[in-house]
């Protein structure tokens, strides 16, 4: 650090003070910790006070409380032995998701009630809750299923079931014939429909089906409606379809209101001497005639095999699921160039996948995303190495989006939010207030010590440290960083380190002065010597923080982030702020009044 220009020092100090004032204004507003207390507000006479009052501290659950959400997990598809581990997987995924930036510090825990598994998610601050609920809701549900051996396309009924079904349907037919006759006899169709029809879509409207064209209903229905019945006629006998027996009444019919496709219009050639409207008319005439019918019906439903046999799902869950997903990435198919999504499993998942593919050679295995089969490849051979590929009609954007969603964490089981309530701080308001008070007293004691021991430089360092504190709090507010007790610990530690940096500089300064140097030279030399200590000790702390941020989660990560921010800003504070303050002192005056710098330097 070579000779400096005094002018530059003044500029630096000016900027620093500006930063300090800005930070102080940002820091000022603190919303009350709970309803009846006051909180701090920027008074009206300060310019832009309403702007400053918008900034708020994000306090964690232990300091301020927040919201308590309960999610129900649906473990019905999971084998009971695997349930607990699946729910643990959900817990981990949700925590990862909600804590994406490492500063939300949620509390996520599993919860068991009468064999039902739930997840409790507690989040600080109410404003973040809706965002968190959305984030949790967007968590993809990834399941891997194989064919259920109990499923078959044909449902076979036992002879008793078959007989029961036939008898039931016979009764239905008789009932339908009876109603049909009543309608033919003149009873009000609407009334009959409301009373007997088993078609939920139309019964309350008197069986009214509105205007329809061919193809809307099943062929048997259409045939009767369009070909057999005249307007106003009721079917002489009930018509049987797959749904049951229908009594149909044709109310009216008409030619369809013609529409011409604009696209077809473009194809028409309009020559110079052709009249446009003529061409249009011709186009319309050349279209197929389109009939529409207005009808009503009464349905008496029959039973089919499905009603007797339990519905067996085609697919059954395997133990492999979203919680085994290590990561997902986009790849391109080598032949077609289409984007596909590659899934990489963790060790446990790779083993499971190998087993599943070995068991299902020649059969399809389904990958379900959000309970919808997204890919159903046939297994050709046992796959080791734990990689699966989802091919499908993705475009690149869809593939990237899917990869992003999966990488943030994929759930192994579906979840549903069942309750939401606010909670107060775990530390208790009394405790928090006392601690704030105690902290302030501690800091005051430190300031006193610094001034008494290091005198004038000590006073300057107190000033520098105040600026440091104010700036760090501003960064916490703006980022934002959710402050929990752990985060506050990181902050206190970093203040300790900031003080340390100042102490290092001052001790060096005193040494240089003792060895006979004059003040301004001592400042520069002291600084130079102290800098290596400050740099090395702080860098080792930063390295530790980096690793904790990378690997850790929730509280550990939050703590590491606050500490890292604190350390970085403290380095800045020592290099720029303290040094500038020291430099700005009038060297001659200090040299004359050595006592300003320390007792031992009186002579």
């Amino acid at each position, binding site marked *: 650090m070579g000779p400096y220009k005094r002018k530059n020092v003044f500029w630096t100090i000016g900027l620093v003070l500006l930063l300090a004032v800005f930070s102080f204004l940002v820091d000022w507003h603190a919303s009350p910790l709970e309803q009846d207390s006051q909180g701090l507000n920027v008074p009206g006479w300060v310019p832009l006070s309403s702007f400053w009052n918008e900034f708020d501290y994000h306090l964690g659950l232990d300091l301020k409380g927040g919201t308590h959400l309960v999610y129900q997990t649906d473990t019905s598809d999971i084998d009971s032995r695997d349930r607990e581990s699946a729910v643990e997987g959900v817990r981990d995924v949700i925590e990862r998701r909600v804590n994406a930036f490492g500063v939300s510090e949620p509390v996520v825990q599993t919860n068991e009630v009468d064999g039902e598994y739930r997840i409790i998610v507690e989040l600080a601050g109410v404003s973040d809750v809706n965002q968190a609920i959305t984030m949790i809701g967007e968590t993809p549900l990834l399941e891997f299923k194989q064919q259920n051996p109990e499923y078959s396309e044909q449902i076979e009924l036992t002879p008793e079931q078959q007989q029961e079904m036939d008898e039931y349907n016979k009764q239905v037919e008789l009932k339908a014939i009876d109603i049909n006759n009543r309608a033919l006899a003149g009873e009000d169709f609407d009334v009959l429909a409301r009373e007997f029809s088993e078609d939920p879509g139309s019964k309350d409207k008197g069986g009214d089906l509105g205007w329809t064209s061919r193809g809307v209903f099943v062929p048997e229905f259409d045939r009767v409606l369009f070909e057999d019945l005249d307007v106003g006629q009721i079917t002489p006998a009930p018509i049987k379809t797959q749904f049951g027996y229908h009594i149909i009444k044709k109310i009216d019919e008409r030619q369809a209101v013609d529409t011409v496709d604009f696209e077809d219009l473009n194809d028409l050639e309009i020559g110079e001497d052709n009249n446009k409207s003529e061409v249009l008319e011709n186009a319309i005439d050349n279209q197929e005639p389109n009939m529409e019918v207005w009808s009503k019906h009464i349905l008496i439903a029959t039973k089919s095999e499905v009603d007797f046999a339990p519905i067996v799902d085609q697919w059954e869950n395997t133990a492999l699921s979203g919680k085994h997903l290590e990561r997902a990435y986009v790849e391109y198919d080598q032949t077609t160039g289409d984007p596909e999504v590659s899934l990489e499993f963790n060790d446990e998942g790779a083993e499971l996948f190998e087993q599943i593919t070995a068991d299902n050679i020649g059969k399809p295995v389904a990958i379900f995303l959000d309970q919808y089969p997204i890919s159903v490849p046939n297994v050709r051979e046992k796959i080791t190495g734990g990689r699966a590929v989802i091919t499908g009609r993705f475009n690149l954007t869809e593939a990237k989006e899917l990869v992003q969603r999966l990488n943030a964490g994929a759930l192994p089981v579906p979840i549903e939010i069942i309750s939401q309530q606010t909670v107060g701080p775990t530390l*208790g*308001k009394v*405790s928090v207030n006392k601690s704030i008070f105690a902290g302030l007293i501690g800091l005051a004691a430190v300031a006193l010590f610094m001034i008494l021991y290091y005198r004038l430089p000590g006073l300057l360092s107190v000033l520098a440290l105040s600026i440091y504190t104010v700036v760090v709090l501003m960064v916490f507010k703006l980022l934002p960083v959710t402050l929990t007790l752990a985060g506050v610990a990181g902050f206190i530690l970093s203040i300790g380190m900031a003080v340390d940096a100042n*102490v290092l500089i001052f001790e060096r300064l005193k040494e240089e002065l003792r060895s006979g140097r004059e003040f301004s030279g001592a400042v520069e030399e002291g600084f130079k010597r102290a800098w290596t200590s400050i740099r090395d000790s702080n860098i080792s702390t930063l390295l530790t923080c980096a690793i904790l941020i990378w690997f850790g989660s929730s*509280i*550990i990560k939050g703590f590491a982030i606050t500490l890292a921010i604190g350390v970085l800003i403290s380095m800045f504070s020592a290099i720029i702020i303290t040094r500038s303050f020291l430099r700005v002192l009038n060297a001659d005056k200090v040299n004359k009044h050595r006592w300003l710098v320390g007792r031992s330097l009186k002579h």
Partner: protein
Amino acid sequence: MINIIQKRNIFFTISGILVIASIVSLLVWGLNLGIDFTGGSLLEISFSENRPESTAVLDALSEVDLGEIRLQPTGFSEYIIRTRDLSEEEHQQVLAGLREVFQSQDLVENRFESIGPVIGQELQQKAIIAIAIALIVIILYIAYTFRKVSKPVASWKYGISAIIALGHDILIVTGIFALLGYLFEVEVGILFVTALLTVLGYSVNDTIVVFDRVRENLIYRPKDTFVDTINHSVNETITRSINTSLTTLLVLLSLYFLGGTTIKEFVLVLILGTVFGTYSSIFIASPLLVVWNQLKKKS
């Protein structure tokens, strides 16, 4: 000037005893793991009239021997109470105890469920790996940045000495908490882990400052013997070490004695860590360098 190096065996002995005592303490009693690690029960109760202060509820609950209790007000007049796993008998005792204290109110139990740990298994493993890597990285960094003073002691040995001092600090603090857990049923949770990490950062920081002075003296005063250099360095940095830890302790002691009850355990870890961290930087880490040197000479 205090001749720390000559008297190093005294300090090694003291530390040795403390470390062994801590290890024994941990093996015999273990740490009393709190509900963050073990999970437990969740009880939500509803008061019919005004919700009493949390201190009042905690007092009422202290009748039943519950260990760590976490209390959260919720909604308008409810409390969520988290404790370790309660047997049905204990569950009823708690309700009875509360009802007796708050006789004028109608207490309704909204839910009583079991809850899992807040720290997942996966996270626990990751945390341990992370710390192990952090230690290795620190050794590497120190080895790199002290490369210029590889004589007479290789620079990576500085790193190892720092880590040994750090290990010493953490072991002793943890050992003390195992003892406290046994004697006073003090429980450890996530905050404890966080506080330990704070100690980790602090101790390394402290040690490096002393080593930096050693480095500087080795370069600028090559004529002194290694032992003298270290002695000088430590003496020169003592003031600074003590001042720094003093200022930190001022705040911590203030928090411990004047602050709220719920953070006492957390602050205690920090206090112990600061004290031992400073002690180890001065009396353990630097003398260790001399030991390395002598070992090298003998071989």
